[in-house]
């Protein structure tokens, strides 16, 4: 093709592209203009309540999940087979199956086991809130264990050898050298995992919990205004993700302060 013809073609394509973009912006503005804000105001309290439940679920499950992940990750890197294999199985199971299966297994499945029904476990497994929390914590525990395993193995060998050489036991070396270093290495991947968990909590609405997605479904079912319902939930999720990412970056910078001097 002639260079001139090519240039004209490019210009035409660009013009059409910009024109369509302008049209899209107009359509989006029109939709925002014609939204039924009454619906959003009427359900504002419930939407905020749903947001709070989402925050609660993600915070608690990540917190509990961390304390599941830590021993599992340490077992996973151990040289002792009967420590390593169960940890591997745990990680493999929770990373290899959908969160929805895990959630339904715990909520619909375990509630039917007699052993669960007739013991002190019943009040826990009867409650959708606790079931969701257990499923989420185990799930994020599996993923986080894999992240921590990678981080532990990424700690420079020389630092571990040095710790052992000055007489630290393996436990002390873990406590003072390996884990503090590994936690810092794991921060970026851990942040991604927390965002995945935040998105995962939407599944709690499938077992009758009214978190943010559950509220959006409720509003849609009651008012048949899907755009208003899902848009407000979507925007709130975006806001939560954004705030979390900012806070997490601040946290990462703070945790790695000691590296700043080295440039």
């Amino acid at each position: 093709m002639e260079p001139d013809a090519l240039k004209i073609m490019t210009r035409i394509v660009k013009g059409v592209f910009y024109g369509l973009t302008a049209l899209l912006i107009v359509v989006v503005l029109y939709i925002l203009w014609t939204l039924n804000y009454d619906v959003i105001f009427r359900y504002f309290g419930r939407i905020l309540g749903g947001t709070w439940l989402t925050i609660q679920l993600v915070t608690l499950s990540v917190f509990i999940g961390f304390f599941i992940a830590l021993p599992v990750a340490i077992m996973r890197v151990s040289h002792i087979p009967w420590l390593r294999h169960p940890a591997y199985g745990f990680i493999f199971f929770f990373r290899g199956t959908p969160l929805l299966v895990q959630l339904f297994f715990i909520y619909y499945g375990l509630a039917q086991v007699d052993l669960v029904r007739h013991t002190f476990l019943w009040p826990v497994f009867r409650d959708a809130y606790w079931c969701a929390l257990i499923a989420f914590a185990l799930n994020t525990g599996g993923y986080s264990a894999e992240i921590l395993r990678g981080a532990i193995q990424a700690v420079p060998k020389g630092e571990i050898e040095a710790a052992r050489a000055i007489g630290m036991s393996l436990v002390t070396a873990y406590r003072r050298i390996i884990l503090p270093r590994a936690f810092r290495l794991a921060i970026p991947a851990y942040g991604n995992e927390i965002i995945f968990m935040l998105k995962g909590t939407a599944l709690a609405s499938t077992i009758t919990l009214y978190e943010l997605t559950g509220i959006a479904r409720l509003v849609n079912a009651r008012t048949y205004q899907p755009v208003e319902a899902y848009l407000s939930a979507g925007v709130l999720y975006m806001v939560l993700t954004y705030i979390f990412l900012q806070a997490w970056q601040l946290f990462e910078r703070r945790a790695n302060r000691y590296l700043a001097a080295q440039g």
Partner: protein
Amino acid sequence: MQTVLPYANLLLTGTLITLLVTIAALPIGIALGLLGAGAKLSGDPVAMAYGNVYTSVVRGIPEFLVILVFATGSQFAVNAVAESLGYTGHINVSPFVAGVVALGFMFGAYATEVFRGAIMAIPKGQIEAARAFGMGHWLTFRRVTLPQVWRLALPGLGNLYLVLMKDSALVSLIGLNDIMRVSGIAAQATKNTVLFYFVAALIYLALTVVSMRVQAPLEAWANKGLPRAVR
């Protein structure tokens, strides 16, 4: 075993539906991923804005909400368009199409980042050499960049494929008879929920293992032009 066997057929069709949904979503996701990566690397401010909005929206919104939006939204949009064209009846959008498009849409956003990384990892010198030979932008992309993108992107795409397969369980919630749904049906019929959700978990694990086995020869194929040391 005695309880599961009568439902083997049902579980098999569920597995096929899961695979079908996953494999159908894959080309949509890869196309969107290449498009997104192209937009993000284009240098054109409007195209870059599209790419950024696309990836950050999908990253920030739950998979389940995206599926719901596509399932309800497609219904809403198709009927609104039909109505404005003068059609008064009601049109049903199949949950299969809505689910596949939603999964492809989400896959595409993560694939955008994988492809972007892969394209940026191709040495600049190779592009310059191709240009010096007189290849145009498009020919350079097709002959030099694209063949190497597969090689560099495959590990990342493999991970995304596993995520996609697990996310496909969500289509059971909009009415598709995938593994998740058929195990639920079997569980209700037999009152043995633990067993059937466990079987569902095992099927997903088996699919994961098989997919990982397929990935290795694919990567070997994509790497065939390279000397062994570089692999």
